[in-house]
């Protein structure tokens, strides 16, 4: 899922102060906390994605960075300078708006030049910069068009060019590709990352689309109810979620509710109604504690016959991490098939199987009785 191959700074590399520091930011609308004490450090050159469903406060946080909302309390430091008191037009920050907010009465050229003109740059300088931007987004031929004469993808590029023209210190992207259709979005994601990297601008984006966040961002902050639940690289967020919300929000997950039965330094055993789980690493918990075992659908195996002991990850797992059930539903998606298996105790789990061979020897179908098993190293034990 994470196709991010960008060699970009990830963790604080230089040990210096982060480029953008958000310190205990709070935004209250009437009595509701839209953003609730968010603290966040972003390094120079990063593409940071705030990911969450609508109403989680991510847009409010972005609007506070742009200056359209005033924080109730807290600090925002950009390169060491507190910007909270600055008006939007005084901040060295530009934003690419959701559905772009291009000025309909101005041509592409004038849209891009708008910010440069406000800075009172000399004419030749403006012309040179606009030309450079048009080059960057490959829209030279469209300079004289009005926004409504452009396709969605072209409008998106104009919006990007407009927000980059002033060479902002920080670029904000609000649902950058939300207005594009799925096919175009996929291509544009990488194109957009390419341009941002070429310019080298630090970037904070807001999205509800996890695939978009994972493709584009170096780090992701998952938000819910005004708080950031987890910050990490896309693979960290996916493989080691720190709570049920994150595990469930990013991708899909099977959650088994159970209690810790054996708590050893090198392994734990968790009993859930579906099966017993053997996990080959220790957890920070105590025996008897209620936990959730999270297993991603693609990390499960499915077959009609019981797996041989030798096929398991280790002999210690024999008798664990396995359940039997009946295929209740299946969705053939071409590259993979998703099975909904109703386990014997009534729980339905999702299992995905990659269709590597064109004609599988045994094709599973509705009503088949199957074994579902997985490896204890691939699960995450969630305590909250």
């Amino acid at each position, binding site marked *: 899922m994470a196709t991010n191959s960008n060699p970009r700074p990830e963790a604080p590399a230089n040990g210096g102060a982060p480029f953008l520091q958000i310190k205990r930011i709070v935004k209250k609308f009437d009595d509701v906390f839209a953003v609730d004490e968010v603290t966040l450090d972003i390094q120079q050159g990063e593409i940071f994605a705030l990911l969450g469903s609508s109403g989680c406060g991510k847009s409010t946080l972005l609007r506070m960075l*742009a*200056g*359209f909302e005033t924080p109730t309390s807290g600090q925002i430091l950009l390169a060491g300078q507190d910007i909270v008191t600055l*008006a*939007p*037009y005084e901040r060295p*920050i*530009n*934003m690419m*708006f*959701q559905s772009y*907010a*291009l*000025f*309909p*009465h101005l041509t592409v050229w004038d849209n891009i030049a*708008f*910010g440069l003109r*406000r*800075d009172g740059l000399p004419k030749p300088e403006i012309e040179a910069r606009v030309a450079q931007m048009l080059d960057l987004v490959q829209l030279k031929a469209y300079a004289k068009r*009005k926004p*409504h004469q452009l396709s969605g993808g072209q409008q998106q590029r104009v919006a990007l060019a*407009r*927000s980059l023209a*002033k060479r902002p210190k920080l670029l904000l992207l609000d649902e950058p590709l939300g207005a594009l259709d799925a096919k175009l979005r996929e291509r544009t994601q990488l194109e957009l990352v390419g341009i941002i990297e070429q310019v080298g601008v630090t970037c904070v984006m807001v999205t509800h689309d996890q695939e978009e966040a994972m493709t584009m961002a170096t780090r992701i902050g998952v938000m819910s109810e005004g708080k950031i639940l987890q910050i990490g690289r896309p693979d960290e967020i996916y493989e080691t979620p720190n709570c049920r919300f994150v595990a469930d929000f990013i991708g899909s997950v099977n959650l088994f509710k159970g209690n810790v039965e054996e708590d050893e330094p090198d392994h734990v055993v968790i009993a859930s109604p579906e099966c017993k789980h053997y996990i080959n690493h220790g957890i920070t918990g105590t025996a008897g504690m209620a936990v959730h075992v999270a297993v991603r659908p693609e990390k499960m195996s499915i077959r009609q016959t019981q797996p041989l002991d030798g096929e398991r990850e280790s002999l210690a797992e024999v008798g664990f991490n396995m359940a039997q059930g009946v295929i209740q539903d299946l969705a053939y998606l071409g590259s993979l098939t998703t099975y909904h298996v109703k386990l014997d105790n009534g729980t339905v789990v999702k299992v995905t199987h990659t269709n590597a061979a064109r004609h599988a020897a045994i094709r599973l179908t509705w009503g088949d009785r199957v074994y579902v098993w997985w490896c204890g190293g691939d699960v995450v034990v969630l305590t909250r």
Partner: protein
Amino acid sequence: MSIRDKVTGSWGRSAVIGVPMVFLLAVFLLPFLIVFKISVSEMDVVLFKDVLTWTDDVVTVSVKLGNYIALAQDSLYIQTYLSSLQFAAMTTAICLLIAYPFAYFMARSPADKRPALLMLVMLPFWTSFLLRVYAWKMLLADSGVFNNMAMALGLISEPIKMMNTPFSLVLGMVYTYVPFMILPLYANLVKMDLRLLEAALDLGATPWQAFWRITVPLSKSGIIAGSMLVFIPCVGEFVIPELLGGPQTLMIGRVLWDEFFSNNDWPMAATVAVVMVLLIIVPLALFNKHQAETAGGGRA
């Protein structure tokens, strides 16, 4: 045959368009043609001679252009037209200056307060326009409310002459027509995408620059619609100049009335009317053509 063809091809569609068309033909175009016919007719004591006559198998077309020539040569008429246009333009400009901030304020106020504000704009329409203009007469007269009050307060010793001046005329017209400017402006401004203003601020425009660079250009169609709604009736306005205007305030509407009812020179009156309509229609047609050409240019 697609559904669309069925819909566009049906007689029901023609009927729906046809009804207002017939109405417009009957009450606007036909009377206008009659007026036009009168304007090129010769007076024959009390009746007009027919433009088209059929006697002894000879069709005689007698078009009298004398009135048009007279109109073009008489400086009084020309001056009256110019002065009408001038008063109308002044009224339109003042209406715009008053209406724009008002409409802007209405459009930016909380959505639940807008209906009440809109009601305030329309409230005056509940009283007859004639009565409201009469009321201004009482207020502005030499011994009217304003003068009496100012004198009682000792601000002035002599009454200021306000009635029957260009001031009272323009005041009356502005008062009457300002809602017609507010409503289209409001309808336009309330639809505006406020994110465009945020985008302008984000790109470094001060709120004042954002207003002039974004809001005003995008409300162009509202400004034009409102200006038309004020300017056109103002040019031909009769009641307000009659009640509030003085001898210096030449308005074509009063000349028209005089020609019809004092001079009983219907052909001349008709000529004045036809020229007035042309004076308004020609720029309007040009404007519409321009609008059609740039249609979609600004989806304000």
